[in-house]
């Protein structure tokens, strides 16, 4: 059990990434594929966060005297994740708006039926 306890954030992030990849590879609905992309994104963000996380330590905001530099987590991954979330939102918005256009041209969201360009 201690293995799961120590590694649960890594397991969760890896699981989310794999679920996302599965959705992207297998599902045929365009909206579901976009949701899968977002799963991958969230998984990567959790991976970044848990790399900098130390169990039992707090956020590095020095508002109280008992918070010193020895009992805080690494703040750099959190800054990275903020940036990554913003980028993820941009991609999601662009994907959905292109998806709307695809639907208007093809009257379907099933990627097996969208065959304008041969592979």
């Amino acid at each position, binding site marked *: 059990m201690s293995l799961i306890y120590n590694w649960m954030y890594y397991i969760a992030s890896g699981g989310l990434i794999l679920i996302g990849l599965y959705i992207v590879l297998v599902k045929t609905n365009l909206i579901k594929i976009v949701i899968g992309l977002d799963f991958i994104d969230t998984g990567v963000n959790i991976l970044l966060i848990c790399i900098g996380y130390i169990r039992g330590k707090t956020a590095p905001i020095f508002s109280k005297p008992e918070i010193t530099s020895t009992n805080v987590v690494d703040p750099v991954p959190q800054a*990275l994740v903020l940036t990554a979330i913003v980028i993820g939102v941009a991609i999601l918005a662009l994907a959905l708006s292109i998806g709307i256009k695809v639907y208007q*041209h093809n009257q379907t969201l099933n990627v097996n039926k969208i065959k304008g360009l041969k592979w």
Partner: protein
Amino acid sequence: MVNPSLLVGVPLALAFSIPLFGLISKKIEKYIPIIALLINVIISLILIPQVLKKPIVVSIGGWSPPFCINLVVGPLGIFFVTLISSIGLLVSIYAATYIKEEPTEKYHMLFLLLIVGATGIVLTGDIFNLFVFFEILCISSYALVAYNKDKEGTEAAMKYLIQGSVGSSFVLIGIALLYGLFGTLNMADIANKISLANSTFLFISLAFLITGFGIEAAMFPLNAWLPDAHSSAPSPISAILSGIAIKTGVYGVARMVYTIFNAEGILTFIAFLGLLTLLIGEMSAFRQDDIKRLLAYSSIGQIGLIIFALGIATSLGIFASLFQIVSHALAKALLFLAAGYMIYRIGSKSITSLYGLGKKMPITSFAFAIGSFSLIGLPPFAGFISKLLIVYAAIQVKKPIFIVFIVVALIATVIEAGYFFKIVQNLYFRESKNIEKITETSGYILAPIIILAILIIAIGIHPQFITGLLKGAANELLERAGYIGWVLGGS
């Protein structure tokens, strides 16, 4: 001294000011990218001699590396910046008259952001900053592929977006693993500590990074998006994607493999992947009947040749690979611009509709012929020298496997010659009745095409123009201790 951070800053600031200029007057906005890129070309030309003497490291925020985000302007970076801004300048001159569909201010803004992304990727010395610029490049190219909002464009953009965003997630996973191993994001600092880490984790991280950048570079199993995206985009965007965007993926792979990971073991595998990409690309191009799809598949082939030469891993091999990057960027930009103009006149992308255009559009057709001869590798064009150098470098390694590789590569070149000769022959020696009214336009839409053709011939006749810069760039990739020394001091 000019501050190299202007290379990123000027286009970024001007990009977001374009909609504001568009409010004042529709006539000003299309000249903003030309101005921004002209400034970039001038700055990079001023910086080249300084950088070749001593590389410039710009630290942002007053901290010293490895604690700050820094720009590293070495020979490799300045070589790519010069290439990106000069190709971008020519394409933006072309696009100023070519792009008529509204909203043009959004087109010019996204175009400039794409250039910012590409410039940032090659200059930055911070691995997360690299990811951010990579995303700027990718998001603006997804949007630009769908710019015409037609059926093909949106479908191609969707495919590109799905594959590209999986790729950039992979890059981020690789970066997260590297940060977890070393606790730093500075590329020189990671490179300095790389031998201390567990090799299994390093391999996983390298695999993620190469897959991620490989999607942008269109290496063989990851290139399904490229023919659709490059052929459905507006022609100036096809030129910039083929000329610049996929090269930044190659830069990413090269920087990771050579500078950061020092992974000599996988270089033969990378050369093999490049060879596969070359063969698949050229064979697929041979049976296309849509001119832009043909050029897109030919881009895959040429990228394969570049990656193959990168995998040779001698100083001459990397030099040849960078030379091939220059000659392919010039030739493919020229071909896409000329083809885009022909398609605009004829109204069809099919190769059969190009019959007999040589007499109606003499300048464009002649430039098209120059571009395709340069890609095939005929003297006296730039492509001849790069292909000759690649063959010479592969023979010089004296490993039997590379002799086999180069034989296959030359067979692929013969296939390439097959389809390009066919097009040029159709341009000049076939008759067609549908093109009676087509004429060559005068005016400055022809200027970028002519300049590109002149550059190809000039570099082909007198390669010493760029060899000094290319030698420095190849050394930067091979001598990683030097790179670490510039950034961290000492050495």
